[in-house]
């Protein structure tokens, strides 16, 4: 079985690498490497954004959160999807119209300041790193369950982390953005196909979604916990109504009165500051297309997350029934409840599809991880290569040198995240944070939403924003977010702790206020009107559309 | 016609409070939540849908009614040769009265417009003379309500002359759409009033003819406006100034000069191409911005422009070539003589509840003296190079009847505000 799974995995990785190689950019211009030459269809780009965005946190984490806490776990999915609404309303079109390479580039040119550029690079790198680590953790967990054996003396977990990081870093270094746009889109379709397949087999076996919710809600929610070295089921306390038990279909399983709101605010604002997602917008041909791309993303996200919630519910209901006649499940469960909730979709796959089913879901999980890592590494490369190397280290760099600077940055960042993932073995943390992958991703969102999103929105919609204001805002947001999250373990996760774990609701307004105050005391760039023409005008879009029409007309004319 | 959203919001809140009280507090046990929500949503829907029509007032019964009967054939014959096709004038009314007198079954027949008697034929013509105000109070009632009145009593007829031979009458309104423009009166010297359905039927036919006449007139006005606008823009003030600007830029900034020329061609193309009465606001807006960008090229920093446009207003229909003249007046009379220039603001809004489009053109220029304002509104403005406001208000009158408003406020020294409100279409 192990051999078969390994073979499937190897085959998949080879396929991805080959796709990256075949589609790799011809000619080593930086624009090609980073942005696939800007002509990528709306739906393809939407798929690629989904591929970037749906990470292990979405593929395993959402179902896991629903598995652990029922209704309250659904809020992860809601927040992940909701994040694209503000992106569409406030960011997508102006970002595309003005931007060229990366978030730091956008902010630096909008505010006419290298200081802003470097501050943004720092924040972006931090966001990327805190997003990369949970992905690596997720791949480690998947490997552990799928293969269960290490290679070359490493533990299974470490093997998963290393193999996935190395493979995807290689892909990015060799393939660049075009390779990853197409593979990203294909990878997303693969994820969606896995979920649809799982949903179909689960529903086909007579599973009734509403009945399951009703039945699970009859008895209090229980989860395994380690007490004095023994695993046993503990009743979850209702966070809304202390002393009462929590129920699957009712709120209170995870959040107190504040928790849902702080989490959703964190996820909603965070999306607009995620570098790997925002960089995708630069590949849209026009600002209008960037908007429509977001609409498609929201459609895909809706389907994907609705399925994830369904699967989390199904796992809760079906795993406990399946334990009796499946001995392999006993090792993973305590009285019919999974110890590591992230295993939920994988176990479902094995119950319904046997070894092959497990392999399919595991491949889905790995693909989710890989595509997200690829996007993150590429965003990191873009900001190192373009914003730091070309601008500050070697201003006279040739295209070739810049590309190589980006490639080496990829390797460094990948190595760093793998190391961090190895140090943070999740079992030590699971007691405090159920569904560790989703929780860790929340931190990346908190950082992005606190430091980048407020400055971003202000720079786009407020003429008076100045460079010192933006730097002050980013620093305030980042420090507040990091500080509050660091405080969280000492406070616990109740009451005020709910804010500390998802600190955007405090940090983002603070960053906004600081940006506004400092901006009002300093002078804005002199040529705001010219920048405004580019940021909010559609002349470039119209030119692009006309050019496209002329080209099409020319092609048709030749055919005739 | 003011913004109606607030009262509606208030009414909705009140409704939900009421529904809550009636379903949750008073009954014991309280009603199911589903039922409550259903009732609340239902009432809210009725309120929201019914509210705009309530604001517009009750619908009047159309004054045009068919009147079948013995006289049907004769009436049809008369209808074909109705002389009112050229509008409600004294001459046309006179011919109409002569034509109609035999078929109406009365002794005297009169036609009035809102102000005066246009024609009178039959007994009583000695003191019911053409050019008088309609004297009877019953005609005032018809003009106000737009409904046929039958008078059987001499005293109710209300003729001030004690020797008047007329005893009874049927007075029917002549209406264009919903607007009453005059009356058809048929009198008899005895107590039996003339046949009401015949009078009404003929009044209906006459109304239709008047409506056709109005349409002709409207079309002519629109053509006038088009010519006016064109003439205005070809005059030296605008065209030569723009050409001069272009000529001076041709050397320093040829690309800019080329763009200005293209804009100028866009401007004329729009002015010439329009042949309907109504056009999407978005297109009029394009015309306004083309015009203002040409003026901006000429005035430079002295002319500042600010648009404030509701997203919904872009697809609303507005009368063609209406907004640009207002803006042109603001530039010409408000800002061109002000040394440090000023700002022209175009604000366009839609109130979906009262179904009103409101357009406001403001400038902070020198304002207008009372004489200039008078000159503009009385139609002499066209001679001054702008499209006279009177032309605009005539076209609005033709298109919307009483359902529009055009207000001008100007303080000498403080700028001008022109406020236009038309039904949303």
């Amino acid at each position, binding site marked *: 079985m192990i051999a078969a799974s390994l073979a499937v995995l190897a085959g998949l990785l080879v396929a991805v690498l080959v796709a990256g190689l075949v589609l790799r950019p011809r000619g080593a211009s930086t624009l090609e490497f980073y942005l696939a030459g800007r002509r990528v269809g709306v739906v393809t780009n939407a798929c690629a954004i989904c591929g970037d965005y749906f990470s292990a946190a979405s593929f395993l984490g959402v179902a896991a959160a629903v598995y652990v806490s029922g*209704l309250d776990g*659904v*809020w992860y999915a*809601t927040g992940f*999807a*909701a994040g*694209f*609404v503000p992106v*569409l*309303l406030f960011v997508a079109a102006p970002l595309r119209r003005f931007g060229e390479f990366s978030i730091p580039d956008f902010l630096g040119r909008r505010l006419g300041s290298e200081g802003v550029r470097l501050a943004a690079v720092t924040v972006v790198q931090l966001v990327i790193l805190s997003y990369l680590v949970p992905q690596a953790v997720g791949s480690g967990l998947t490997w552990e369950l799928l293969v269960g054996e290490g290679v070359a003396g490493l533990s299974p977990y470490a093997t998963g982390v290393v193999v996935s990081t190395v493979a995807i870093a290689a892909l990015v270094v060799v393939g660049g953005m075009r390779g990853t746009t197409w593979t990203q889109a294909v990878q997303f379709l693969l994820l969606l196909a896995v979920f649809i397949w799982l949903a179909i087999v689960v529903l086909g076996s007579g599973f*009734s979604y*509403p*009945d399951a*919710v*009703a039945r699970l809600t009859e008895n209090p929610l229980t989860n395994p916990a380690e007490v004095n070295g023994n695993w046993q089921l503990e009743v979850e306390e209702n966070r809304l109504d202390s002393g009462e038990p929590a129920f699957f279909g*009712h*709120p209170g399983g995870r959040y107190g*009165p504040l928790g*849902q709101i702080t989490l959703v605010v964190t996820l909603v604002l965070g999306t607009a500051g995620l570098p790997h997602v925002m960089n995708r917008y630069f590949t849209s041909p026009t600002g209008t297309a960037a*908007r*429509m791309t*977001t*609409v498609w993303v*929201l459609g895909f*996200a*809706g389907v994907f997350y*609705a399925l994830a*919630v369904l699967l989390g519910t199904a796992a809760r209901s079906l795993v406990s029934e399946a334990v009796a006649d499946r001995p392999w499940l006993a090792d993973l469960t305590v009285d019919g409840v999974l110890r590591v909730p992230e295993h939920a979709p994988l176990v479902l796959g094995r119950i319904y599809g046997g070894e092959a089913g497990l392999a399919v879901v595991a491949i889905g999980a790995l693909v989710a991880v890989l595509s997200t890592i690829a996007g993150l590494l590429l965003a990191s490369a873009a900001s190192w290569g373009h914003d730091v190397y070309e601008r500050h280290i070697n201003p006279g760099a040739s295209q070739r040198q810049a590309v190589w600077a980006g490639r080496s940055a990829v390797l460094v960042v990948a190595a760093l995240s793998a190391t961090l993932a190895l140090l943070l073995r999740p079992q030590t943390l699971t007691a405090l944070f159920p569904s560790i992958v989703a929780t860790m991703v929340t931190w990346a969102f908190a950082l992005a939403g606190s430091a980048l999103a407020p400055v971003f929105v202000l720079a786009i919609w407020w003429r008076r924003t100045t460079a010192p204001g933006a730097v002050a805002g980013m620093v305030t947001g980042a420090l507040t977010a990091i500080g509050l999250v660091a405080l969280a373990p000492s406070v616990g996760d109740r009451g005020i702790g709910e804010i500390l774990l998802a600190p955007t609701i405090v940090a983002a307004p603070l960053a906004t206020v600081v940006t506004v105050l400092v901006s009002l005391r300093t002078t804005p760039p002199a040529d705001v009107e010219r920048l*405004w*023409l580019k940021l*909010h*005008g*559609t002349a470039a879009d119209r*030119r692009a559309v*006309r*050019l496209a029409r002329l080209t099409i007309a020319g092609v048709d004319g030749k055919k005739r | 016609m003011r913004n109606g959203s607030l009262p509606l919001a208030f009414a909705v809140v009140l409704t939900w409070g009421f529904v809550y009280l009636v379903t949750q507090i008073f009954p014991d046990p309280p009603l199911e939540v*589903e039922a409550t929500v259903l009732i609340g949503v239902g009432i809210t829907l009725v309120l929201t849908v019914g509210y705009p029509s309530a604001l517009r007032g009750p619908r009047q019964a159309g004054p045009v009614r068919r009147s079948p009967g013995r006289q049907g054939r004769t009436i049809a014959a008369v209808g074909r040769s109705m002389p009112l096709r050229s509008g409600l004038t004294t001459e046309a009314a006179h011919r109409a009265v002569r034509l109609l007198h035999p078929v109406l079954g009365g002794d005297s027949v009169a036609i009035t417009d809102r102000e005066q008697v246009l024609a009178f034929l039959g007994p009583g013509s000695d003191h019911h003379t053409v050019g008088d105000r309609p004297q009877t109070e019953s005609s005032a009632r018809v003009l106000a309500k737009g409904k046929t009145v039958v008078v059987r009593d001499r005293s109710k007829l209300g003729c001030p002359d004690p020797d008047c031979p007329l005893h009874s009458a049927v007075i029917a309104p002549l209406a264009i759409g919903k607007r009453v423009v005059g009356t058809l009166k048929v009198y008899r010297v005895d107590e039996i009033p003339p046949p009401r359905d015949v009078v009404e039927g003929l009044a209906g036919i006459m109304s239709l003819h008047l409506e056709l006449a109005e349409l002709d007139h409207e079309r002519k006005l629109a053509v006038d406006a088009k010519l006016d606008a064109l003439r205005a823009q070809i005059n030296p003030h605008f065209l030569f100034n723009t050409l001069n600007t272009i000529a001076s830029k041709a050397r320093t900034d040829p*690309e800019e000069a*080329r763009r200005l020329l*293209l804009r100028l*061609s866009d401007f*004329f*193309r729009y002015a*010439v191409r329009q*042949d*309907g009465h109504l056009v*999407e606001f*978005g297109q009029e*807006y394009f015309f306004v*911005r083309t015009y*203002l960008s040409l003026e901006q090229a000429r005035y430079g920093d002295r002319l500042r*422009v*600010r*648009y*404030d*446009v*509701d*997203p919904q207003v*872009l697809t609303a229909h507005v009368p063609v070539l209406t907004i640009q003249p207002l803006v042109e007046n603001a530039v010409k009379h408000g800002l061109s003589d002000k040394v440090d220039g000023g700002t022209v603001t175009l604000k366009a809004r839609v109130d979906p509840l009262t179904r009103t489009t409101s357009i406001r053109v403001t400038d902070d220029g020198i304002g207008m003296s009372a004489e200039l304002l008078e000159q503009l509104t009385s139609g002499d403005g066209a001679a001054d190079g702008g499209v006279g406001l009177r032309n605009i208000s005539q076209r609005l009158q033709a298109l919307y009847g009483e359902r529009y408003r055009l207000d001008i406020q100007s303080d000498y020294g403080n700028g001008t505000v022109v406020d236009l409100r038309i*039904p949303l279409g």
Partner: protein
Amino acid sequence: MASSGADTPWTDPDEGDRRVPDVGDEYDMPADVDAAFRTVRRVAVGHFVVFLGVVVAVPILTLTVDWWSEGRLIGGMTPSFVMAAVGLYVFFFLIAAGAATLSNAVEDRMLGSPEQEPPDRDGAEP
């Protein structure tokens, strides 16, 4: 770029032909961009308020209205579960589609020149 103007043929406006478009002719005036910016901002803020209202309403309904967490809709799911598991995604998609269409339409009409369609589009009766 400036020389490209010389070869653009001028056609009489009444002939019904438009001059051959030149890609370089597309440009925006600052006042126009400011107007479009303002209107798009109005669209964005309006939609965002609705979005925020609905998203925040769900937890608030949870805390205040019992029926929201106790009632039964489709085969035993509570309204809050239905909303969180499916309803909100549908809502997000709809509001996104609405906002994107409206913003694009606004920019289309407020910037650049309208497409030259046959003139029968003009002057439609209300």
